[in-house]
């Protein structure tokens, strides 16, 4: 435990040198997306048939974007910085010459990404509140849902990153993984709009479950059984990714 915390401390020390730059982007992104899509495009949507249950489009979209923000932040944090520490600067190798072990590195790094996700999604949630888009008292739990969505990506992507020797594989992750998931997993429109054949695929993705959970919480529509299913999927994917990361990090760092 102590050694894992040292890895977190290392990440915090590095972050302390760059947090100002990231804070602005963290704040700007939800403002732009909610402004353009939520209110701009949402105005059109609400004037036509609107959404089932008469929910304004912006209120529907915001928690979806919250979860998607978790996914995107996690995808970035678990690719380039991790590759840098394994291959480019060999920071993890230097750690391994101390009492710190491979499991400490994986757990500490993932814990740090979790902390970053809480920060980023909290800022996002603050913007939602400012725009009057958190309609339920338990909407704040959406921060947890979005963080968990992020971890469900961070753990398996970290495991993948440790198998790579350069950053070429990351393009594929973003282009064929993160972007389609962002667009088609219920963030912008209900997955029921998808062709019937594609709907089951959406249900299999962590993004769908993260978006659904955050949305149910924000709109006050959460039911315990549904929430438990969403949670189980997100925790399960995170755990599987973590187990894989233990193996791939060991292969990359211990020869």
């Amino acid at each position, binding site marked *: 435990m102590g050694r894992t915390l040292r890895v977190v401390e290392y990440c915090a*020390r590095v972050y302390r*040198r760059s947090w100002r730059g990231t804070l602005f982007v963290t704040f700007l992104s939800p403002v732009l997306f909610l402004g353009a899509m939520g209110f701009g495009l949402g105005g059109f949507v609400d004037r036509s048939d609107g959404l089932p249950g008469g929910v304004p489009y912006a209120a529907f979209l915001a928690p979806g974007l919250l979860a998607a923000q978790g996914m995107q932040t996690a995808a970035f944090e678990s690719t380039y910085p991790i590759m840098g520490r394994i291959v480019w600067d060999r920071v993890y190798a230097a750690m391994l010459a101390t*009492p710190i072990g491979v499991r400490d590195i994986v757990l500490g790094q993932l814990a740090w990404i979790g902390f970053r996700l809480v920060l980023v999604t909290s800022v996002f949630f603050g913007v939602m509140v400012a725009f009057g888009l958190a309609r339920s008292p338990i909407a704040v739990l959406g921060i947890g849902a979005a963080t968990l969505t992020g971890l469900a990506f961070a753990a398996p992507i970290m495991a993948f990153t440790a198998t790579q020797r350069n950053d070429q594989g990351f393009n594929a992750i973003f282009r064929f993984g993160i972007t389609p998931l962002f667009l088609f997993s219920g963030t912008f429109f209900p997955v029921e709009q998808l062709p019937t054949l594609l709907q089951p695929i959406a249900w299999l993705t962590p993004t769908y479950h993260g978006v659904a959970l955050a949305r149910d919480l924000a709109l006050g529509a959460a039911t315990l059984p549904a929430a438990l299913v969403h949670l189980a999927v997100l925790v399960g994917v995170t755990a599987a990714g973590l187990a894989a990361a233990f193996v791939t990090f060991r292969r990359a760092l211990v020869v």
Partner: protein
Amino acid sequence: MPGRMSRGEPLPLVHARGLTKRFGAFTAVDAIDFDVARGEAFGFLGPNGAGKTSTMRMIGCVSPVTAGTLRVLGLDPATDGPRIRARLGVVPQQDSLDMELTVRENLVIYGRYFDLSRAEARRRADALLDFVQLLDRADSQVEPLSGGMKRRLTIARALINEPELLLLDEPTTGLDPQARHLLWDKLYRLKQEGVTLVLTTHYMDEAEQLCDRLVVMDKAKIVAEGSPRQLIERYVTREVLELRFPAGASVDLDGRLEGLAERVEQLPDRVLLYTDDGEAAVVAVHERGLRPESALVRRSTLEDVFLRLTGRTLVD
């Protein structure tokens, strides 16, 4: 600090028997035996690919042993890795300094990995920066430092936990002569303070400068062991006469140098005569009517030992 006693013998800091490392079908280290005593400076000398780094990584408990016995500080790396590493300092072949942190931060965070308090880590960091003459660069980024400075910072980092055993993998490779001498001076002072040094090198002068005892490695095996002096006495003569002949002339030297030295080694660019009296050999060469372009008498070195043992020079 006295070594722990075991049947009356001081326990070696590193003890290896039949130590082997294989990567798939490739054998990097082939059943080597050695012991490192507390307080000594012990060297692995050999060309690139001889198995030195693999051996160091096993001692450093970052690379699992394939076969054989290895004990470091009396403990088994397979089961006690973190406990051993807590008492080691490691200077890897490639610098692994953190480019995102300052010089001082590199040391402080490293101290934290060894569970030092923040105040203690900072105190030791400044003392070590002073020792390696980098205190004035404490708040600078790592990137602009010269190669020699980075190497010194890496050594300072390896000392943050006040290790009993310092592992140095090619500590001065790629440094200019001035930077090398500064580093040797620091390592010599550490040795005098009682830190046990284990280092690898492919520089003969480095091994002669720093090592009390060394093993010569070639093709994954140990081919000789002893102090630099012992190895020179055992495998070569006291002096070496180096002769250079005009291009083409060395081809028909066949037999004409016989009897002038204990051993004659013909290299592409020169001829080496191993003898205890180099000056006498120079005279004898001229008496036989040979006219070398140049004749140099020098003390024999570990380079000659290596040549004698492997039939090859130690070039990269």
